[in-house]
């Protein structure tokens, strides 16, 4: 046998991702349903999503508590019975709430769909918010809250959102200990009746679908009554705080947490796809500039990353890391340094090629299998976008030039406008 030359085998350009179009129809009461047929197993992921996130709350903790209390007892089942039955049918469910939306995601075996949909209807539309369950949930949550206040990552992140979105805006306001005493069932009932309604929601289903699936959905959810839409007051102003650099003292912390970033454009803006690519170069993957410099060259940290995220009203970008106190300032200086380099020096062709191919591979992973497909569908749909958003991202990955990266870095990473939050020992 000839001696093998250990040279890199030919690399083929990553194929353009193929995204199946979601089907859609409406239930009798107008609830939109999106269907994504995928996968080989007899399973489904069903997401019920409502515009019922933090943005809608008039009291801190209201949206998350309403969401977490959904499975704590309904008209026909106690909390214990609901949980026992969902477990019994081998389903997994996640209640979730974020800044804009709230809802539930269920993973189910197709053979139990009938029963699980019946239980979901109880959870979503017939919750009773019993006081004793609420009290014990709030006691538990207070404990978790106190625990999280011990972690420098959380201290820095909470302060970061408060700083970039404003102390009084629902995107930014911080929870305090006293907030846990204020929540009573009446608020939850009110919040639920306003926002967990057919005209404020959608159902996204993916997996191996059957004709019966649609019939069952209509049977269980098609007659949920549509109420008169709740008229909202004017939205609060989104405005960052004046103070750009904040340190939170946490005596005894072994590491300091750093968050650097600001609010920015969201997915609806034409520059967003380019900003995503810039963000990857800076700190979005293993061979990014920040990882190479701060972890792989200097060994200051276990991990450093940057990310750009979209919210309904705005987006935000943030660079996050935890480092030893003695390396904290050096790390911050290096972060700004890397940003300055991206603003001044055009990215070399080779590095552009790596990031192009890496993100192209990521895009294939984003659409691989029923669960990933549903998540990607939702994260375009909730901004009123469709697959053309992903196709324009794919196009941008192929065509973006180094000059455009430099330009984007100047426009969106103006160092004077960035917030710098640290948490750790003084």
């Amino acid at each position, binding site marked *: 046998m000839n001696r093998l030359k250990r040279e890199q085998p030919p690399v083929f350009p990553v194929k353009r991702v193929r995204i199946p179009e979601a089907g859609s129809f409406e239930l009798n009461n107008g609830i939109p349903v999106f269907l994504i047929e995928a996968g080989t197993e007899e399973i489904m992921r069903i997401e019920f999503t409502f515009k019922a996130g933090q943005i809608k709350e008039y009291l801190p903790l209201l949206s998350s508590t309403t969401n977490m209390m959904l499975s704590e007892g309904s008209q026909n089942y106690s909390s214990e019975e609901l949980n026992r039955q969902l477990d019994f049918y081998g389903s997994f469910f996640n209640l979730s709430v974020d800044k804009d939306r709230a809802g539930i995601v269920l993973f189910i075996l197709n053979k139990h769909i009938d029963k699980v949909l019946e239980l979901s209807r109880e959870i979503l539309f017939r919750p009773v918010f019993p006081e004793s369950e609420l009290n014990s949930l709030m006691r538990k949550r207070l404990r978790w809250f106190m625990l999280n206040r011990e972690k420098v990552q959380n201290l820095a992140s909470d302060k970061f959102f408060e700083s970039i979105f404003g102390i009084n805006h629902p995107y930014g306001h911080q929870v305090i200990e006293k907030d846990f005493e204020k929540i009573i069932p009446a608020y939850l009932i009110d919040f639920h009746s306003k926002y967990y309604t057919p005209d404020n929601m959608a159902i996204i289903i993916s997996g191996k679908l059957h004709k019966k699936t649609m019939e069952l959905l209509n049977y269980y959810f098609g007659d949920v009554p549509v109420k008169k839409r709740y008229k909202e007051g004017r939205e609060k102003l989104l405005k960052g705080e004046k103070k750009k650099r904040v340190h939170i003292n946490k005596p005894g912390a072994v590491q300091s947490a750093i968050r650097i970033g600001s609010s920015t454009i969201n997915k609806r803006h034409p520059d967003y796809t380019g900003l995503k690519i810039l963000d990857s170069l800076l700190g979005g993957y293993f061979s990014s500039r920040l990882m190479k410099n701060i972890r792989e060259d200097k060994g200051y940290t276990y991990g450093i990353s940057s990310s750009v995220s979209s919210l309904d009203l705005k987006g935000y970008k943030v660079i996050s890391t935890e480092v030893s106190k003695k390396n904290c300032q050096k790390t911050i200086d290096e972060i700004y340094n890397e940003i300055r380099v991206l603003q001044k020096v055009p990215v070399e062709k080779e590095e552009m090629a790596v*990031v192009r191919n890496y993100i*192209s591979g990521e895009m294939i992973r984003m659409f691989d299998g029923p669960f990933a497909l549903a998540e990607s569908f939702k994260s375009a749909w909730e901004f009123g976008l469709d697959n053309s958003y992903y196709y324009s991202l794919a196009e941008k990955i192929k065509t973006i030039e180094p000059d455009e990266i430099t330009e984007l870095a100047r426009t969106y990473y103006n160092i004077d406008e960035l917030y710098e939050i640290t948490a750790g020992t003084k």
Partner: protein
Amino acid sequence: MVNFKKFALDNGLRVLVHEDRSTPLVALNLLYDVGSRDEDPSMTGLAHLFEHLMFGGSVNIPDYDLPLQMAGGENNAFTNNDFTNYYLTIPAENIETGFWLESDRMLELDFSQKNLDTQKNVVVEEFKQRYLNQPYGDALLQMRPLAYKIHPYRWSTIGMDTSHIENADLEQVKNFFFSHYAPNNAILALTGNITSNLALRLSKKWFGPIEKRYVKLRKLPAEPPQKEERRLTIEKDVPSTALYKVWHIGPRKSKDFYTLDLITDLLAGGESGRLNTKLVREKKIFSEINAYITSDIDPGLIIVQGKLMKGINIEYAEESVNEVIGSLQNSNGIKDEMEKVKNKFESASVFSNTSILNKAINLSFNELLGKPELINQEVDEYRKVTLEMVIEAIRRYFIPSNCSTIYYKSTRKDK
């Protein structure tokens, strides 16, 4: 059903392939049969540090990540007590790049002092971030030497102390590589959009020329049976007091494994587990409580850990845990609960096997146990567990003399 084929190369490398045409990707998993249990007690944390070094370039490839990303791939790795596992996913058309990368670092690493120094720092920061700078982060680090006196499970994968990592030198690192990283000490699994023919051809091409290496036979000291209960109290500035209890169990391959795993699910699987229902929801003794079994290959542990609600006496909390465990012996309603837990295992297995990466890791691990077909049989193993087996296991394992307990007490006034 996960259909797979198995081959062995002349150099001892075992290869498992599962074809799944529904994805455009391939997952490649390479498991090395070396973990923290194979470390010298004076050099703990080396297996995990070594995992970091594997990304610092190999003999023909100066940078591992760059060409992988260039081919649209993504990768990561983890180390535990028993083995070290490297994996990547990549678009099918570029799978050969994965073979090229993984075989080169099995062939030989490019050991550099600079890379070693950097990764030592990175791992020390990881130690701090995950264990030292988190409330209760060190609890299980302290539990190990309480539960194990002799067996290397007495230290955790991150190591006994950061100084062991800081002291590692290039010579030790090289020795570690050549005595554990070898085709005859590894398992390769490929899942996804790849045929077994192609997988075999590429395995032979890239891994075939790597020569068999001498791997020292594993001779680990057996942990003697625990004779009396062990206790430790830690006092720290944490928000609330926590309770940790562990019991010794048999090895991963013992017949009791599935019974014991099922017991931990009766106790803490899902919202409706007994510990949660009784002690969190009804009695409000704990704010959260969990029970699980370590999947260690040598005799492992059952772990119960919970955080107490304000003002609860820890002895009372501990007693309540014992009571709930004991209650599993009363047959009231337990049949339904067992059925529930078994259904949950079945669906967890179905959901886990929707991911090609999970399938690749599961196949490799089951091959390490010597039974790759377990990937399709485990649900039945759980189905076979009877109430009598549960009762017998509780009486045998959950006894005070087999137990180690940590009271992790909060020093705050308002605890």
